[in-house]
């Protein structure tokens, strides 16, 4: 019996807004339309990066009063956590270095619990990410992976996100 996959896509956006990694976890999510192209994902991830940055400027006044006493630059910490549409939800994890992990998954399950779940899995993937990207001296910082390593990382990500 095939389990119904709840996670659809996994995306890594680097700190300058470019697409660093993309994996489609469920094959027939978009039934009538063509398969999503890499160009579309590239555009979508740079839109997300820009808008995430823009949300720093629309913080309401009441929040400023709460955070005013602190010295920290709280505007910089503001990042989109969770985005809900009618069909799916997007959970994001933003690291201190400006890297963003996105998991796009089904909305049918209870949303806060699934969101917490996604964040935990993304933290584990972050550890894997450091193995593949940061610790490799030949891998430059913001560039996507080469072919072989990409397949390996893809396999590890699928193991974590497919249940």
């Amino acid at each position: 019996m095939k389990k119904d996959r709840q996670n659809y896509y996994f995306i890594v956006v680097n700190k300058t807004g470019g697409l660093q990694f993309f994996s489609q976890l469920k094959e027939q999510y978009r039934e009538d339309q063509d398969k999503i192209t890499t160009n579309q994902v590239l555009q979508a991830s740079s839109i997300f990066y820009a808008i995430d940055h823009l949300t720093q400027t629309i913080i309401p006044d009441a929040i400023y009063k709460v955070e005013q006493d602190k010295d920290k630059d709280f505007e910089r910490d503001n990042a989109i956590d969770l985005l809900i549409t009618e069909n799916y939800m997007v959970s994001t994890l933003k690291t201190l270095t400006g890297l963003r992990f996105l998991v796009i998954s089904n909305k049918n399950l209870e949303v806060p619990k699934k969101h917490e779940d996604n964040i935990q899995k993304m933290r584990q993937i972050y550890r894997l990410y450091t193995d593949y990207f940061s610790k490799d001296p030949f891998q430059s910082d913001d560039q996507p992976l080469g072919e072989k390593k990409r397949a390996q990382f893809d396999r590890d990500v699928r193991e974590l996100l497919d249940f």
Partner: protein
Amino acid sequence: MLNTKYLDQDNLFELIIFQGYKNLVFYWNFAKGMVNTKSEIQDLLKQNRIQNIYGVSEGLKGFSQAFSSEPITNFRYFLTNYFKFTIYEMCSGVKIILLSNISDQTDYSETLKEVYTNYLEIIKRNPFYVHGEPLDNPLFIEKITDIFEPFQKKK
């Protein structure tokens, strides 16, 4: 997701209604008051913040449509570390946006739908209303205050 730091704050921060391209017709800061006269709205539009709110809703609309399996008009809401941004958009170009507290777990999509039905009946179907003008109809204002009355925290 429950952040106890903001429990003392109000539940609702701002209600914003756009009509068409960057055309602000109604603004309600729950702490300060409503803005629906033409001169005040023009002052507000000069600030970057309102333009950015419009930009955020349009940008994330493009992002949401890329990954959707069906054609959708816009996303429902998103959460950041500090606030929650709920939007109700119709094909005619009306956007109703509510900024609220993240410690508040209620889903405001239904209340924004109610705001929209009131908007339709009181504003749009009024033969004397000119498209693009600010919403200063007193019946509309009364209905809106009644809709949001139970959600506002009473101190």
